[in-house]
């Protein structure tokens, strides 16, 4: 009994060691915030189109269409958005996933130039120059991408640019899951 008491510090130390080891080794990223919106309906919003472009605007009604939709929040001034763009084009054209955009805190002429330079894969784009609607989405930065199922519910949220390796490991599985 007494010996158990003497062993207690060692046990506590080993427990702490295991906890620290796990924190360092598990690849867990404490700065990744869980989304408060998962499995909830997308927020109510109605955004006008970007001035000087043919693509129509975006509102919540456009998300509950019976098919899975990717909502990508982007801005012309955001460098990771530029890097991510080819991936979005691929998801839309090769995987056939419906893709719409929210243009965050951007000047219309800059957004138009961005889309002219890189091609426009979005079937609809809502302009959010104030960033007010994006806040309803719980946006923490650009880019962010949401997977919306056919009933208009948010099923997955991807913070930051979609890396090529994340298409197979995260985006496509999330889209599959949302199609069920």
């Amino acid at each position, binding site marked *: 009994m007494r010996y158990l008491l003497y062993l207690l510090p060692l046990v506590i130390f080993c427990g702490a060691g295991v906890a620290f080891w796990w924190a360092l080794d598990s690849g867990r990223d404490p*700065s990744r*915030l*869980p989304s408060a919106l998962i499995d909830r309906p997308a927020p109510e919003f109605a955004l006008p189109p970007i001035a000087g472009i043919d693509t129509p605007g975006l509102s919540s009604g456009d998300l509950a269409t019976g098919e899975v939709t990717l909502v990508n929040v982007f801005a012309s001034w955001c460098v990771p958005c530029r890097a991510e763009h080819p991936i979005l084009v691929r998801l839309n054209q090769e995987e056939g996933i419906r893709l719409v955009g929210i243009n965050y805190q951007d000047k219309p002429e800059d957004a138009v130039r961005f889309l002219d330079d890189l091609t426009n894969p979005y079937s609809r784009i809502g302009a959010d120059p104030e960033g*007010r609607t994006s*806040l*309803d989405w719980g*946006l*923490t930065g650009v880019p962010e991408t949401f997977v919306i199922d056919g009933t208009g519910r948010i099923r997955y949220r991807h913070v930051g640019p979609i890396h090529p390796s994340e298409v197979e490991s995260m985006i496509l599985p999330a889209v599959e899951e949302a199609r069920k």
Partner: protein
Amino acid sequence: MMRELFAVRNAGRDIAGTLREIFGRTVGGLAAAVVALLLVSPVSALMPDEILNDPALEARARALSKDLRCVVCQNESIDSSNAEIARQMRLVVRERLVAGDGDGQVLSYLQARYGDYVLMKPPIKPETYLLWYGPAVVLVLGAIGAGVYLLRRPKAAEVAEPLTAAERARLNRLLNKDDA
């Protein structure tokens, strides 16, 4: 030549006089400014264009901003964060207050979008019991441990018997032998 020298000297005197005048007059002003700065709360990222006209609402907005965490900087309140998203959140806080929301409603409005993470004070619920009550539990356990230790400590050792006459004589003999 002479006249130019005079001009220079006079100019010098003029500058010195002007400086004396400025500083003499503003020492009080400077002191007042320093005192005012010392009285102000920690630095805020609030911009003049965000401030509401109604001082009562503005005071509530400032208090609420200190209870909301910036979702970019992770350890700053939106009151002190310079991130663009934090500015948006400050504006939303004011928008909700102007719309007539109570303080609690404003906090839940943002909590619904960003999760518990945005609250500087985590809410008390089963997942956070350890966080809230853990320290108290540790304190109580420590107090119990200390109490048990103090109560079970053996009483002070008995006072030794005084020396007998024979022992005292022998001791003296030994001590004297050392002296010699």
